[in-house]
């Protein structure tokens, strides 16, 4: 491939995000011979942090983050016309990338989970649709460049640190970034709830399969019998049935229990992204093809409305 590959480096408090090394692996899968350039908006510490892993690091010394509008403008000014840019598919990447591809007049693919080679100028990308229930191959014409959002966690981080790149200051090329139609004000931190599920060892987690608010009682009963805490997937919080502080996932809490019971949860990547530390995972779902069964240790194909009360009863007896 003749084109240059770039990776947008997400960072926080002076440290590169985990996706920084995942994108190295993604770029190598895309093209093993590619020279890969990291793009860092912000501090030297992050540039130095990733320099060993990238052939080159371009530094843009601004504090524009998290204003995607400003960063989009800068990227249009510094990237070559046919660049292939990899961006983490997180909340910032979702804000930045689709519009960027329009401004660069290049192709866009969201939430890529794998690459399977390039043929006739078309990159074969693996994606998922319908909440991960099916996968697709997508052919992306990259001849005019491409912006590709890569799912966090989809590629194993490349820890080889074998590139040893130079840091080049590109701030001068980024252009005038002053005027914007969108102005960042502040970050409002999530409120703490009555239980801190990030500290729980046993989580009884409930999803949309519970169907009705009144049915939540069977979940609390099981949690009580097992000595665990109740957590949930996002739709339960959207419906205001449980507090936001009980939501597991990328836009909720990151938990690291010993045991995780997923009850009526399909297993979307945003939900699974909040479960760390490889707990013993049990999934109960009435759909034998639910994606959660691909990641759980033990599965039960059953209706939770019937199964959970029986389980609670037997757990009570077994104690």
């Amino acid at each position, binding site marked *: 491939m003749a084109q240059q590959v770039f990776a947008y480096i997400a960072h926080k408090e002076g440290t590169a995000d985990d996706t920084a090394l995942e994108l190295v692996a993604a770029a190598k899968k895309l093209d093993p011979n590619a020279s890969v350039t990291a793009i860092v908006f912000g501090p030297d510490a992050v540039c130095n942090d990733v320099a060993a892993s990238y052939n080159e690091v371009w530094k843009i010394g601004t504090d524009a983050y998290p204003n995607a509008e400003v960063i989009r403008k800068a990227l249009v000014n510094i990237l070559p016309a046919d660049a292939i840019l990899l961006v983490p598919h997180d909340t910032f990447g979702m804000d930045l990338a689709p519009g960027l591809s329009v401004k660069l007049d290049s192709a866009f693919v969201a939430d890529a989970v794998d690459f399977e080679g390039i043929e006739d100028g078309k990159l074969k990308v693996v994606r998922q649709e319908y909440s991960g229930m099916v996968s697709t191959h997508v052919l*992306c014409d990259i001849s005019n460049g491409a912006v590709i959002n890569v799912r966090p966690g989809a590629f194993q981080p490349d820890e080889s640190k074998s590139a040893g790149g130079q840091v080049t200051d590109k701030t001068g090329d980024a252009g005038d970034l002053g005027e914007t139609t969108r102005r960042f004000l502040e970050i409002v931190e999530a409120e703490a709830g009555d239980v801190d599920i990030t500290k729980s060892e046993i989580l009884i987690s409930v999803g949309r399969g519970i169907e009705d608010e009144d049915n939540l009682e069977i979940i609390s009963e099981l949690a009580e019998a097992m000595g665990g805490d109740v957590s949930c997937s996002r739709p339960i919080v959207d419906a205001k049935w449980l507090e936001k502080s009980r939501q597991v996932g990328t836009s909720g809490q990151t938990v690291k229990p010993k045991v995780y019971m997923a009850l009526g949860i399909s297993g979307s990547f945003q939900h699974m992204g909040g479960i760390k530390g490889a707990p013993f*995972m049990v999934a109960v779902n009435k759909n034998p093809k639910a994606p959660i069964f691909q990641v759980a240790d033990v599965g039960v194909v059953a209706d939770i409305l019937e199964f959970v009360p029986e389980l609670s009863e037997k757990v009570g007896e077994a104690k």
Partner: protein
Amino acid sequence: MEILVCVKRVPDTSENEIEINNSGSDIERDDLVYSVNEWDNYAVEEAIQIRDNVGGSVTVVTVGDDESEEVLRREMAMGADNGIHLLDDAFEGSDGKGFATILKAEVEKGKYDLILTGAQADDGAGQVGGMLAAMLDYPYASLVNKIDVVDDKKIKVGREIEGGNQEMNEIQLPCVLSIQTGINEPRYVGIRGIRKVASVEIPVHAAGDLGIAPESVGEAGAKVKRADYFVPELGEGAEILEGSTDEVIEELIKRLKEKGGIK
């Protein structure tokens, strides 16, 4: 405030097992239950609430086949004032940019202050809103979970970011926002509501009406094309416990005890 909301008719993933057809060219579409994309309902509810607070109108628009009209009527039954159906064989097979191109042409026929989309739909891409904004040169914010109208020139929006934190921004109008679930509680639509709007006329606009060159959209204009659907071969997956309910429960309790799952 004049508000346009972009909506899509999608297979309802909580009602269906999505399976792939024999050739892998598509999902099995027979007997699928369709509904309006979950995120779009929140967008329409938000638009209705803003209109009720500050005045103006809400228009819902969809790019889709004949049957997509039903989602426009559903959202009108919720309280949207107008519907517009963008329908043309030439639109079929569009990629994200194709859909954004079609919507842009419709936006330019009207005079909207605020354009809303759902944060994502069935393909999980979340791309059309951001592309539409860039094509129109409007400001954009994604994953919006709070909107405060400041005046007729600007609004304050909260974006939902990692960890459930919220990023507050001030944005000039006109702008495009993609709406995240949970921003409000979408109202219930009954059969009676749908009947009320059953005979309201919904204008249909084709490529010609929108001044779109057919080859710039659809399959012909797409740089990104789906080649096939498949079920990935993954690792071992879960060990599924089989037997009578009693046997399954007994085995499960044994495993849970081993792993410290029962205190």
